[in-house]
């Protein structure tokens, strides 16, 4: 094959979806295969459709759920929902109305399949290799774990996709992140992605689509790969993806929305070609040695401010950095394990899947959450919740003293009433440690489920390898 013909995985998926090529004057028209929608970023888009008397072009390629502003407190009936405030209740009502009026299938209250949009897409088998997937949510990059081109969009663009099933896009650049070698015991996918963001920075991926490659990535199961791709946006990237392989096909086989019988075999044949060609050129490449990684925690107010759990917090080198350390009340030169913990949150689209809950339960089994620590475990979907309960994980959590909740985004962004109080330190398996993200004045430390669980037990930010 001539060098010039070699394509990256991203270029292959992109090329398959160009309806009208880009020119110097106009962006490409890019076809979207799957549009995920939720209650927070869509009402204004539906309002526009109504205003212009437009239909949804492909309701069959649109999948809706409610996750962001929904309560996670246990309920005996959906009538009793303790929705926080009239605003959230109105949003939920409008979502139901919009889906009904425009003929979109909604995994709403009462649906066994409801959950965080980035958890249920894969669960349903809707997220597949080679698809273009968008959602009015920046963590849409999660679905890139399947070898899809998946990225977040704004509400105006949600309107564009609803009306035309297309987007106007300039082709991003490509960045290869190669994670070679094997991960040491006790180091997880979350630690890998935190280390990557720490290395390239929160704007290191701006304008790029990242392809994660290398032995350590190949060795991950699908849930670990989703954790990695999920946080591509935290490195500023447009999207993140991983070439599909047997692990991918095995995960998808038999799920509700995948092709059946002969069509499945044909799909797998097509998917096998979805890899970067050997001579394909990336605009940039970064290499990371997996064998040197350890459990990672953030110490500042963005996900790039990250250190090994036993390493000292770096000295401030400028005003923005100092502002972050002041906000977090952490001491440079001391490891994060010096800090006492008030709240532990296990959940979110980054780490709210079954393997994450197992990882946390593995640490908590036979142990107690330390006095004075509040621990919340929020499954990523109702299906994750059911499976966890079948395995008895919920009992491990509640016996340890943690709260076991209904699924939703919950304390990841604290808009449903699940918040961290001002000044409290939270060890969270979510993806953003921005100022106030989990509540006004909340101080967030991002970590893996194992590190979060160990921190709950020891009452301070802790290395989970001490408890295994």
């Amino acid at each position, binding site marked *: 094959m001539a060098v010039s013909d070699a394509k990256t995985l991203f270029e292959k998926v992109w090329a*398959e979806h160009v*309806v009208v090529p880009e020119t*110097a004057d*106009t*962006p490409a*028209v890019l*076809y979207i295969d799957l549009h995920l929608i939720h209650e*927070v*970023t869509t*009402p*204004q888009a539906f*309002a*526009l459709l109504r205003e212009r008397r437009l239909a949804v072009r492909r309701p069959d*390629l649109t999948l809706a759920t409610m996750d*962001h*502003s929904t309560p996670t407190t246990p309920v005996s009936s959906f009538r009793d929902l303790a929705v926080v405030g009239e*605003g*959230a209740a*109105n*949003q939920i009502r*409008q979502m139901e109305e919009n889906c009904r009026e425009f003929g979109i299938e909604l995994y709403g209250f009462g649906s066994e399949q409801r959950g965080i949009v980035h958890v249920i897409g894969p669960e349903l088998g809707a997220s*597949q290799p080679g*698809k273009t997937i968008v959602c*009015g*949510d*920046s963590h849409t990059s999660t679905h890139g774990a399947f070898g899809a081109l998946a990225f977040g*969009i*704004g*509400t*105006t*663009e949600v*309107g*564009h996709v609803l*009306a*035309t*099933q*297309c987007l*106007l896009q300039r082709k*991003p650049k490509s960045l290869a992140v190669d994670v070679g070698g094997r991960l040491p015991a006790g180091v997880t996918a979350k630690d890998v992605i935190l280390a990557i963001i720490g290395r390239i920075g*929160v*704007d290191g991926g*701006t304008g790029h689509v990242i392809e994660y490659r290398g032995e350590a990535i190949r060795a991950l199961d699908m849930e670990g790969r989703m954790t990695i791709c999920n946080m591509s*946006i935290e490195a*500023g990237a*447009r999207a993140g993806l991983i070439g599909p392989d047997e692990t991918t096909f095995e995960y998808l086989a038999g799920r509700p929305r995948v092709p059946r019988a002969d069509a499945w075999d*044909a*799909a797998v044949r*097509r998917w096998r070609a979805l890899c970067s060609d050997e001579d394909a050129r990336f605009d940039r490449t970064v290499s990371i040695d997996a064998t040197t990684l350890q459990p990672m925690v953030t110490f500042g107010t*963005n996900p790039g401010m990250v250190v090994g759990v036993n390493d000292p917090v770096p000295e401030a080198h*400028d*005003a*923005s950095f100092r502002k972050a350390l002041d906000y977090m009340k952490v001491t440079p030169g001391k490891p994060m394990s010096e800090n006492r913990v008030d709240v532990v949150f296990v959940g979110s689209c980054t780490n709210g899947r079954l393997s994450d809950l197992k990882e946390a339960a593995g640490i908590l089994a036979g142990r107690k959450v330390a006095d004075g620590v509040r621990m919340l475990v929020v499954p990523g979907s109702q299906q994750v919740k059911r499976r966890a309960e079948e395995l008895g994980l919920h009992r491990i959590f509640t016996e340890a003293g943690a709260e076991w909740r209904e699924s939703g985004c919950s304390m990841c*962004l604290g*808009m449903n009433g699940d918040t961290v109080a001002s000044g409290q330190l939270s060890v969270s398996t979510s993806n*953003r440690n*921005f*100022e*106030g*993200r989990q509540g*006004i004045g909340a101080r967030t430390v991002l970590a893996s489920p194992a590190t979060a669980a160990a921190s709950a037990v020891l009452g301070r930010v802790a290395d989970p390898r001490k408890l295994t």
Partner: protein
Amino acid sequence: MDSLTALKSRTVVLPIRDIDTDQIIPARFLTTTTRDGLGAALFHDLRYDQDGGQRRDFPLNDPANRDCAILVAGNNFGCGSSREHAPWALLDYGIRAVIATEFADIFRNNSLKNGLLPIIVDAVTHAWLVANPGVELHVDVLASQLTLPGGRVVDYPIDAFARYCLTQGIDQLGYLRQQADAIAKFEEARPWKP
């Protein structure tokens, strides 16, 4: 969308890196179903203390800066969540352009679709703007140029199509809908169906 061809305003400076969209508008203000009135929540937790009092040291709280339509911010402005509420809040407050050395991709896209102009400048120009808050700038959107006091002209990059839409006040859905035939043909002809 209102067209924007030129802009003349003093600057208000927020010299912090990586201002994320959670800081531009915190999540608890996202339970709205319209785009109106979000200016009141702009930079809420930076502007107000926990008792609702204005923080004196926050530049937007200085009455002298109330009419500034150009915000100078640090690198990587608008990172994080894809919420379009961020540009809506800035516009509703009265900001029409933001200057930084770099913007997060989704924020930049969202801004351009709403008539908010993201202006990328080099580090030297940026450092000068940060060191000289409140100067009056002139932005020629048609020419993609910024004129500093004293007459120095700085070119800034902007996608040609985005500039066309911005200066004409065209929203891109109309353009996209004109591609209906091409879209239908694409759906017909593709070798596999999603």
